[in-house]
């Protein structure tokens, strides 16, 4: 049974809901991820219960709880909310305390957030309305190629002659994929082309300055994309231990700060 106070962060994303529990030392003692589904509130609660079980704790042990993400206002147990932009910034600075550019690739949006050396946000950008370059794009392409998302990373690594996909538009890109299938191109080469297209869409959002950190579910499940980005930009890219949980960890850190704890450490 956890005797210490815990701080909960809940990130209700468009695809996945993530809950984390941090102890006062900011260690991750419990977490859970589930598909967000259609009842954000219920999913968040189930994730919280599983996280508590993992931490061997009770809900009474939670001193404060913040939520973030697309469904941040639907978390009935949260004391307050912060945007996912703020939470990813907070989470990344916790792992890499320096000036940085954060690239977060989520289910339905991408973000580029810049922090100065003290962790203050200096700017941020979200992708425009279009889904190009987001997890939704990857899901659409997986469907077109009749692949599971898990297979894509392995296949991309096997590519010997990457195809080029030029369109901004997800639907037009899907047409390009069909054209490449028709021409008999290898699936591995098409998958790598899909990855490359996503990276290009993200990189054209902003310049990369200082330390570059990548987070989000897409990075967690497609780590080869980080390698490809490193090759493209010619620099090392940092990835936190749990890239998909970074937003939830940021929310938990905000919760901790709101109680007066850990304010000067991040």
């Amino acid at each position, binding site marked *: 049974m956890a005797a210490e106070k815990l701080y909960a962060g809940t990130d209700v994303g468009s695809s996945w809901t993530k809950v984390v529990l941090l102890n006062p030392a900011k260690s991750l003692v419990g977490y859970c991820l589930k598909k967000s589904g259609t009842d954000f*509130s219920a999913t968040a609660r189930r994730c919280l219960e599983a996280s508590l079980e993992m931490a061997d704790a009770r809900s009474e042990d939670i001193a404060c709880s913040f*939520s973030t993400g*697309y469904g*941040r*206002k*639907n*978390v*009935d147990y*949260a*004391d*307050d*909310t*912060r*945007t*996912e*932009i*703020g939470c990813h910034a907070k989470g990344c600075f916790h792992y890499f305390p320096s000036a940085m550019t954060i690239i977060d690739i989520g289910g339905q*949006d991408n973000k580029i957030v810049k922090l100065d050396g003290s962790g*203050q*946000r*200096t*700017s*941020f*950008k*979200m992708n*425009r*309305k279009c889904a190009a370059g987001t997890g939704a794009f990857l899901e659409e392409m997986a469907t077109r190629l009749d692949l599971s998302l898990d297979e894509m990373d392995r296949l991309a690594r096997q590519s010997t002659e990457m195809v080029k996909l030029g369109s901004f538009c997800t639907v037009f890109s899907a047409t390009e994929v069909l054209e490449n299938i028709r021409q008999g191109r290898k699936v591995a080469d098409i998958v790598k082309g899909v990855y490359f297209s996503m990276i290009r869409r993200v990189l054209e959002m902003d310049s990369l300055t200082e330390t570059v950190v990548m987070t989000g579910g897409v990075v967690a499940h497609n780590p080869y994309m980080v390698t490809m980005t490193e090759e493209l930009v010619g620099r090392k890219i940092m990835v936190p231990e749990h890239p998909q949980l970074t937003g939830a960890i940021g929310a938990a850190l905000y919760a901790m700060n709101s109680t007066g704890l850990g304010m000067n450490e991040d």
Partner: protein
Amino acid sequence: MTEEKIVERKPIKATKEMGRIMTAYYFQLNDAARTHSQKIAWCTSVGPAEILRSLGFLVYFPENHGAMLGASRMATDTIPEANAIGYSPDICSYLTADVGAYLKGVTPLSKAYKGIESVPKPDVLVYNTNQCRDVQDWFAWYAREFKAPLVGIETHRGVGDVSDAHVESIAKQMEAIVSPLEEVAGRKFDLEELKRVLALSRECSELWKQVLDTASHTPSPLTFYDGAIHMGPAVVLRGTQQAVDYYRLLLAELNERIANNVAAVEGERHRLYWEGMPIWGRLSAHAKMFAALSTCVLASTYCNSWIFTAFDPDDPFTSMARAYTELFIVRSDESKERYIKQMIDFFKADGVIYHDAKTCPNNSNCRYGMPQRMERLTGLPSLILHGDLNDLRLISDEQTRTNVEAFVEQLEENKT
């Protein structure tokens, strides 16, 4: 559950009077169109309305109707009608919403003013391309539809310093439209009458400027959202005594707020400058969203665009040409940059929001690196919202909300 706070900005008492004069304006147009008692001219919003009034025309402004289609959220249903006859979804959504509404046989005027069934038919259409080239195409469509004459002024674009040559060429074009307008009006042009109308326009403009300038006070007694609503008389009634009287009333109320330190947004913590077109269909929603975040979007280039300080009744054509060429929208990026910086300083803004309106490239001043240059110049952060003036299909409300909340979080964290 984290409750969403609903916060309204402080209501302006003068709104009732504005409603009264706008109602009278539209019924006068409607009656004239029905009875043919007075000639009607359609005019672009920053066109030579003063010349038209001096010739006895009642003046109707399709752009105001376009904004009403947006604000009433009818535009998204009417735009496809215009798209279907060849007007692209990528061009001005005032144009497509307005032409689409005509084709569909609907108007927000019917909802706002019981008894009005359609827009008033024009006897002549007069444009000035100082807003954009789209107004010319827009008016040309109606000129063909109503078989009415179309006259216009083609303005210089990308103007740096306004030179005498610029002014002279526009003044000549203004003089040249008098004769065809006399023909439609059925009466001779009277210079003294133009001077009288221009004097009223100048007074309206000065009062409107004073109204908008009240937002420089901390806390601001006015929001951009109030400005977007209360600019109605400055657009459609400038050159009349009603507009002058109205802005005196509004100014007195705002000065009273200043005297009593009354804020438009209670607990004002952040002050933002709006650059670009309003998002008409979300005006009220956005006003509430910012108010709930204790943030006052207090001023804008958009509302300032109906300030014409150059108007001089003693030299009407030259001064009108100057005023209508000094407009922000026709100026070079260097001039725009200087202007925005000056406004940020004057209104003591903490940041800038740029609206990148998909169908209005002419008034989306964030596509050539302006936000980045302005950030370097002022050290203040900015946010770009991707949306549109009228076409709600081009707006993601959730993305807008997240962007705005994250921006205010950033302002808040950098303040503490």
